């Protein structure tokens, strides 16, 4: 059996990154993710990797740009205000088709907000986030286990599609301790294949240029269109979700991350009382699991979206269900975390209203 350790979510990410064969971290401290750079500084030192505490999140993301362009797996982590600062760099990285991994341990906002868990960066994460036409592959873990596993998945997707990948966690997932099973062997970074586009000096080959601009008439349009063909592929291949108890459901709760685990308990309460309620947990937020929700909307009358915000993912649920179903919302912004009874009450309200 795989080794099981009781770990902070923030530490699980670090192990996940190390196990994924990444040896480059740059970042700037911000609560509630400080355990990531702290623990990372120790682990990178042990593994002979690069750890840089930078002057700003702007510098950090640009160091990732450099490291990724040099063909190496590189990651950073931050929390909401810091991620805002990184958006410039993420846009350039997306524009240069470079793979990097960014972890956002979301806190309450806008502005300085607070340091309590939130999901209010959903729009930013799933709509590109910075300037220009682009998307970032966005994964939403809901446990320490997934915080350990998603860095590898994130790097694999980022490299497969040459696109930045984002892990959207929150302060609760980062700060909590849970058992984590080390389900796979660590990847040896030297075993990772050399990238055919990496900058390394042009010995024995044509020189390479990494850039995000093209001023020639019509060329940027072509480039953006090609990038959107890539996005279509990602949408087709990479929609990830877990559906539980949805087959006979009259109501499906849609929730990701922390809200999904809380909603799961509410769904269990409802099922215990004989109500036909299921849970759909989007794992990839971009690409959003539009297809499964679209299918479900042909037979499910009610969707209840639960978020730790005033409602952002609900837009995607509405888009996916195309007005075929009734979509209701329960949200807790500014650091509030919903409880199972609270969601259960909401479920009763929605179902009761139709009887």
């Amino acid at each position, binding site marked *: 059996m795989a080794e099981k350790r009781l770990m902070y979510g923030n530490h699980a990410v670090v192990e996940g990154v190390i196990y994924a064969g990444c040896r480059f971290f740059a970042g700037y401290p911000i609560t509630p993710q400080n355990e990531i750079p702290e623990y990372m500084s120790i682990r990178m030192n042990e593994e002979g990797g*690069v750890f840089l505490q930078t002057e700003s999140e702007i*510098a950090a993301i640009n*160091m990732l740009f450099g490291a990724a*362009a*040099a063909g190496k797996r590189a990651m950073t982590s931050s929390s909401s205000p810091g991620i805002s600062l990184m958006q410039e*760099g993420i846009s350039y990285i997306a524009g240069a088709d470079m793979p990097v991994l960014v972890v956002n341990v979301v806190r309450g906002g806008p502005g300085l907000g607070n340091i309590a868990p939130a999901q209010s960066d959903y729009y930013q994460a799933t709509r590109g986030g910075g300037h220009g036409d682009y998307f970032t592959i966005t994964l939403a873990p809901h446990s320490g286990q997934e915080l350990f596993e998603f860095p590898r998945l994130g790097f694999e997707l980022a490299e497969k599609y040459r696109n930045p990948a984002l892990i959207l966690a929150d302060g609760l997932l980062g700060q909590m301790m849970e058992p984590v099973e080390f389900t796979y062997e660590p990847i040896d970074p030297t075993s990772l294949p050399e990238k055919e586009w990496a900058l390394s*000096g*042009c010995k024995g080959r044509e020189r390479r*240029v990494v*850039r995000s601009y093209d001023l020639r008439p019509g060329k940027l349009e072509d480039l953006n269109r090609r990038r959107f063909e890539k996005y279509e592929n990602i949408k087709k291949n990479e929609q990830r979700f877990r559906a539980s108890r949805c087959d006979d459901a009259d109501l499906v709760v849609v929730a990701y991350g922390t809200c999904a685990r809380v909603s799961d308990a509410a769904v269990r309460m409802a099922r215990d009382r004989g109500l036909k309620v299921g849970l759909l947990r989007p794992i990839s937020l971009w690409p959003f699991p539009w297809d499964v929700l679209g299918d479900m909307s042909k037979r499910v009358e009610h969707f209840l979206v639960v978020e730790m915000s005033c409602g952002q993912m609900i837009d995607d649920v509405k888009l996916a269900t195309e007005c075929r179903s009734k979509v209701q919302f329960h949200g807790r912004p500014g650091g509030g975390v919903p409880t199972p009874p609270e969601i259960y009450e909401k479920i009763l309200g929605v179902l009761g209203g139709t009887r």
Partner: protein
Amino acid sequence: MKKIFGRPAGLTEIIQRYCPGCGHGIVHRLIAELLVELDIRERTVGIAPVGCSVFADEYFNCDMIQPPHGRGPAVATGIKRSRPDCVLFSYQGDGDLAAIGTAETVHAAARNEKITVIFINNAIYGMTGGQLAPTTLPGMRSTTSVKGRDVVKQGYPIKVCELLSGVDGAYYLERCAVNTPKNIIKTKKALKTAFKNQMDDKGFSLVEILSMCPTGWGVTPVQSKQWIDDVMSKYYPLGVYRDRAKEEK
């Protein structure tokens, strides 16, 4: 007959899009010559800036990357730390290095990042059309200081070599100019030292180069060259501001 001077192999064949008399071309050529003379072209990664020299990624015959405005030293750090055998140069203008990228510059120096920074100081924003730069001289006109830089309202210029002299991590700092053959020879020597320092794993080296921008200054190329002697180098004195190799001896 043997060609003794001509386009170095460190430059691509592309004709550069700079205005007549612009100093960028001279500095490009000096770097390109050194890529060949130091035999580092095949392990160099150059960082192009945002500004007039945004197209530098087409001009240098080596691997190149185009970072966001001002972030050259951060991108260079990422590459250098990932591939310590590569030689990194970050080519930056005054807006890039001394305004939007001040933090990245100062902190790369503070970390003694083993990179070579080439700082083109022409006291004006060229590409965006001649606006005030962090290095625009007091009283000097720009499109956002039409009556001349008013230091009360717009503050004072930043003297980068002097500023970085206060950063212990910086290994080598020199200010040069490319307005006369004599100064150009000195500039090349400074650039060579800056590259050698990196090759010897010594540390952060920055060469500030006073460079002509006749278009932005509203003068002829010949006048611009004279202006560096008469005015600009009085405000920005040429010379070595830090040389730890010498200090350590």
